[in-house]
């Protein structure tokens, strides 16, 4: 092969890699560019603090940020114990076949589209929650958190199961030889050894929880208020972006959604940095 073709190919590969990496930078730039008017106007502080009320000229996204934090937190709160329990079940407690079945089920869950989760939830979960609270439409923080937990559960379970399975076998054999029961092995050997993987899985799931749009869009109620309880409707940053775009086109509140985008971008960067610190990416690349 001629070396000119070689050089061309190498340049082509480099170009593709640069293109891909620069997409991230472009996204950041566009968000910044479009939010500039708000920065210039000095309104950024009140933007982050006040409530949203277009008629009064208030474009604050605080209710949405609180909504995001609350719904995501609850989802993680629900999903974590379930995740740990299921992973323990798959890797430690159950016989091979049941464990394999459960794992296959969880893998199957990763293929379920978010929109399908939400759609079914509207007709299955929401009426149920409505009954429980005896008020409201059932579209509230609780419904959204439950479905979100279901959505992020596969991430947690698969990550944790991999982390559990990558504990060096000699530790487990040593514990076994000393007469440890499965539970003891889990608590004293597996979890301490795999804690990095566990935290990584949780951080990753948190990222997914914050970044999800459809579940909160379709079942959290989208009310422009700071939720005070589980039965309150709420709106997340992600749902907010979707709603504003769907409604107006060149209106003033438009520019505010790009600041929301900026916030989400910064959040993603923080998650990536956190995962780096935990060594997640090294592990992933080694696999």
């Amino acid at each position: 092969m001629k070396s000119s073709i070689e050089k061309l190919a190498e340049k082509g590969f480099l170009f593709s890699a640069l293109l891909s990496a620069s997409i991230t930078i472009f996204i950041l730039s566009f968000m910044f560019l479009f939010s500039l008017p708000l920065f210039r106007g000095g309104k950024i502080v009140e933007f982050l603090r006040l409530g949203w009320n277009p008629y009064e000229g208030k474009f604050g996204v605080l209710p949405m940020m609180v909504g995001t934090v609350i719904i995501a937190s609850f989802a993680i709160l629900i999903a974590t114990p379930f995740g740990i329990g299921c992973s323990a079940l798959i890797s430690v407690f159950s016989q091979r076949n049941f464990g394999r079945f459960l794992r296959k089920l969880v893998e199957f869950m990763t293929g379920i589209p978010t929109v399908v989760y939400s759609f079914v939830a509207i007709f299955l979960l929401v009426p149920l929650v409505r009954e429980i609270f005896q008020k409201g439409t059932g579209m509230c923080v609780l419904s959204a958190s439950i479905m979100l937990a279901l959505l992020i559960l596969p991430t947690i379970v698969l990550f944790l199961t991999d982390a559990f399975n990558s504990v060096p076998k000699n530790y487990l054999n040593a514990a076994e030889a000393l007469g440890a029961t499965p539970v003891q092995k889990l608590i004293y050997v597996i979890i301490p050894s795999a804690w990095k993987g566990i935290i990584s899985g949780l951080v990753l799931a948190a990222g997914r929880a914050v970044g999800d749009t459809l579940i909160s869009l379709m079942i959290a109620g989208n009310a422009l208020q700071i939720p005070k309880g589980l039965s309150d409707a709420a709106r997340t940053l992600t749902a907010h972006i979707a709603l504003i775009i769907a409604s107006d086109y060149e209106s003033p509140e438009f520019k505010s959604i790009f600041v929301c985008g900026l916030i989400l971008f910064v959040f993603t960067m923080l998650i990536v940095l956190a995962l780096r610190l935990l060594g997640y990416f090294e592990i992933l690349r080694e696999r």
Partner: protein
Amino acid sequence: MNRLTEYGITIFSWITGIILIGAIGVLLSFLLYKGIPALNPSMIFGETSPLDALLLKKAVVDGLFPAIAGTILLIITSIIWAIPVGVASGIYLAEYCDSKWKPIFNFLLDVLAGIPSILVGLFGFAISIFLHRHLSEHIYPCFLISSLALACLVLPYIIRTTEQSLGNLPFSIKTTGLALGASRLQNILFILIPYNLSSIISGIILAIGRCAEDTAVIMLTGAVAMAGIPTSVLSQYEAIPFYIFYISSDYNSQEELMKGFGASIILLGICVFLFTLSNILKRKVAIRFATHT
């Protein structure tokens, strides 16, 4: 730790497992129960005859056909962008990249992988505004923008799988070709890529699945409720996930709702099929590695 606590932990794990199985079981059975009755040709083609619809002689106004067509066309165009750029980037990162620059590339690509889909959609939307203002008045969020945005969304999947599979090769495979006098490019094209084809394809299939199910990106970049089959790349279009979303908040009759369930089943079927296929290919690769010296 006393026996009781241990027992409790075990029971707790089992309970979580059972609840999970139960939840998914309920979800699926409900979906099937509601959706299967709706699965018939008229759900897809409405009042138009299937033949006329497929030959594009008549438009389908009350069936899923435009949405299905839209989704299929969207997937095809998105991966046409994503595959070359993704595989080439993966090759660069695995084979040519200096370890000096790698952390930067990896960081940027990891952020891209982690960005919420709505943000990618917002980006696509921002681009369409930009083009609208600076290039041509006729540009609005459309099919082209959607497919580009989706390509950006799934690019990290393809890059990661390609890079990882090439990077995880045993030393002997990496060097055999070179030892025989192959140039770097020949080694990549004739040995490394063919050897890893299953892995790379599994990443591509994953990307296809992601394109099929995504809603957030397309709702901001051109998917609408009623548009028929897209006639040009600059036109708006329908897609299955958007249909499902739209129907959930705006259905006029039980029949329409049933179509929503039917559409959900179809989308679920497509996605599960693709994800399973991807996993099978991944497993095939793992087996081959285990038996290679």
